[in-house]
């Protein structure tokens, strides 16, 4: 190895907050999730703060091609900069938050424990942000204080 990372990268932009970051995909560890997300890019939506998992932002996925991905690189413990995938039917088929079948991407910016009202969650860890944890911390707390923000994820 010559130290050059060949992983595919994505860019995350929140223009309202002048925030931009890059992340590399964990293609060896989560190949199907990475491929599905890559094919779906650009992904746009409103990123909002989680209400049970701690210091983590969530982006709900509307593209049904991103529903029902298999669990890969499953983790219960997450760290700042981790990007995760979660699908509602993994837990239990049916309505959650008044919605049937949905999926979301999680962006961890501090101490977080993926969970819902009932229990801890297992999530698929599929990417890691390259920027410092400090910039993510600032982003996460701003979203918490001021509400959801439009985000776009695209290929680099």
């Amino acid at each position, binding site marked *: 190895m010559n130290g050059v990372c060949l992983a595919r990268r994505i860019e995350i932009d929140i223009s309202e907050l002048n925030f931009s970051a890059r992340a590399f995909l964990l293609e060896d560890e989560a190949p199907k999730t990475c491929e599905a997300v890559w094919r779906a890019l650009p992904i746009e939506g409103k990123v909002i703060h989680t209400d049970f998992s701690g210091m983590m932002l969530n982006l709900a996925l509307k593209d049904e091609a991103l529903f029902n991905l298999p669990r890969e690189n499953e983790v219960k413990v997450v760290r700042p900069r981790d990007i995760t995938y979660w699908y509602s039917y993994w837990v239990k088929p049916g309505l959650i938050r008044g919605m049937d079948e949905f999926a979301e991407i999680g962006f961890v910016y501090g101490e977080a424990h993926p969970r819902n009202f009932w229990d801890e969650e297992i999530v698929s860890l599929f990417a890691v942000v390259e920027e410092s944890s400090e910039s993510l*911390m600032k982003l996460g707390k701003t979203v918490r*204080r001021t*509400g959801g923000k439009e985000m776009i994820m695209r290929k680099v």
Partner: protein
Amino acid sequence: MAEIEMVMLREKIRTVVILLENEAPRTCEAILNFLPQELDFINGCASGAEALAYLDPPNIVRIEEENLERHPIPGDVAYWYARGPVNPKGSYAGTSTTDYAELIYFYDRKARSTGINLFGRMTENLDEFCRASHRIRAEGPIRILIRKLE
């Protein structure tokens, strides 16, 4: 029986809260002395359907634990004190570096708590007040005027 009102200023939604003076006398007295206040309520990040406003120094009320509740229901109004010092890497998103407190209400059954001073119950317009609170995470904080009712 003392009552307070909570008014969402932009949304123009009002509720009345009966204070639980027998169960939480010190909390009720301190909150009554603290009012009136206009506070921005954000969503909790680990408790579910919980809206909270930071009471950061110098605008802080310090009250010991009283009438602790761990299973809140919609319409519960509560107080919580964090002794500090604040962990800058923690989830707290206010301005204090020392201690802080929170005024809290719950707007859905899907909520949990590690123990808060339960001191009031919403008695009017609960459905509308709770429905509006569901929008905080997506749309941002709700400014609420809280004052005594004579």
